[in-house]
């Protein structure tokens, strides 16, 4: 799963031709660790249809602030440069599948 930074967010997420699922996380957040394997599975499962990336909020405060991320993990689905859907906190995989399928 690709790490995206403040500096690469526009290019990797906003200008992406595919929808992008962005996982906002930080190293010491327990629920974030649980979300990671779910994101990795989604990344493989939707290969070629969506992009799955992660943003470390600790190292990338600008984008986190701009998107008003106030809790982690927060998972945001971007399509055509716009945030279309977001989930705060851990969710089972099929909740994310439903969210992605709605926007494919």
């Amino acid at each position, binding site marked *: 799963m690709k790490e995206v930074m403040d500096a690469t967010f526009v290019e990797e997420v906003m200008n992406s031709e595919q929808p992008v699922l962005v996982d906002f996380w*930080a190293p*010491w*957040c*327990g*629920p*974030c660790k*649980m979300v990671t*394997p*779910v994101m990795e*599975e989604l990344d493989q499962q939707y290969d070629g249809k969506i992009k799955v990336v992660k943003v470390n*909020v*600790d190292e990338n*405060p600008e984008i*986190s602030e701009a998107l*008003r*991320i*106030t*809790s*982690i993990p*927060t998972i945001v689905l971007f399509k055509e440069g716009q945030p279309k859907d977001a989930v*705060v*906190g*851990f*969710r*089972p*995989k099929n*909740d994310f599948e439903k969210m992605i399928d709605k926007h494919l």
Partner: protein
Amino acid sequence: MSDRYDLIVIGSGPAGISAAINGVIRNKKVKVFGSRNLSEKVQKAPRVDNYLGFHGITGNELKDVFSQHLEKMQVEITEEKVDAVYALGKYFAITTKDNSYEATSVIVASGVSNKKSLEGENEYLGKGVGYCATCDAPIYKNKKVAIVGYDVHAEEEANFMLDVASEVVYIPLYGQPEKIKDGVNVVLGRPLRIEGNEKAERLVLHNDHIDADGIFILKDSVELDQLVPGVQIEDNHFVVNRKMETNIEGLYAAGDCTGKPYQYLKAAGEGQVAALNAVSFIDNMQ
């Protein structure tokens, strides 16, 4: 990888122990989280007349009968508070403050908590309101944070937040704090509601208000949908079918946490139904 249990039961009231006993009878590797005293509600009941086979028994006597039953079946209770149950697809991860466990199936028998949410708490959840201060600390670098602590364990999170935030206001709801760091601003008061616009901006107390960028509510008992992220809840209870299945495959619920009536026999019966269906689920997974 840690040893995976077949079945983890969360709660040691009548529903939980009935589930555990039935799981053990079916030869499953079972772990029960709860209290050695089993259930405060049972222990404190002055007299019970509606538990089949026991007329006029006190709650405390009934608790002793349950304990002896567990002992005979060699079911032990792990005294750790479960923070969250994560459905990871093929198994569940169960986390406590210090440990993490894995199980193929989970039965939640956590009872009901009568602590209501604050007004505005759900509305602003994820918009300035959170339940895990240590998780969200990096977001509040050089900002002002208010933390409502329902028990002493919240103090640790307030102390941690002080390393990051510019100002930490701590509102203890259990009396005087014990181990709070100098620098944390302790305010005694009763929180009424959370106000704001697009984001939470203010915690209103009965005699005061605190403007803050982030507000954390740290409870002693976790709300059901915090305990199991993604589970379906209705009116503060798990939504279950006749098999005691929740919307998450492999996750069952039993007892008061599934709804009224809040009765011992109903709880024990539900625990049994949940366990037997969990056993079928586990057998199918292998």
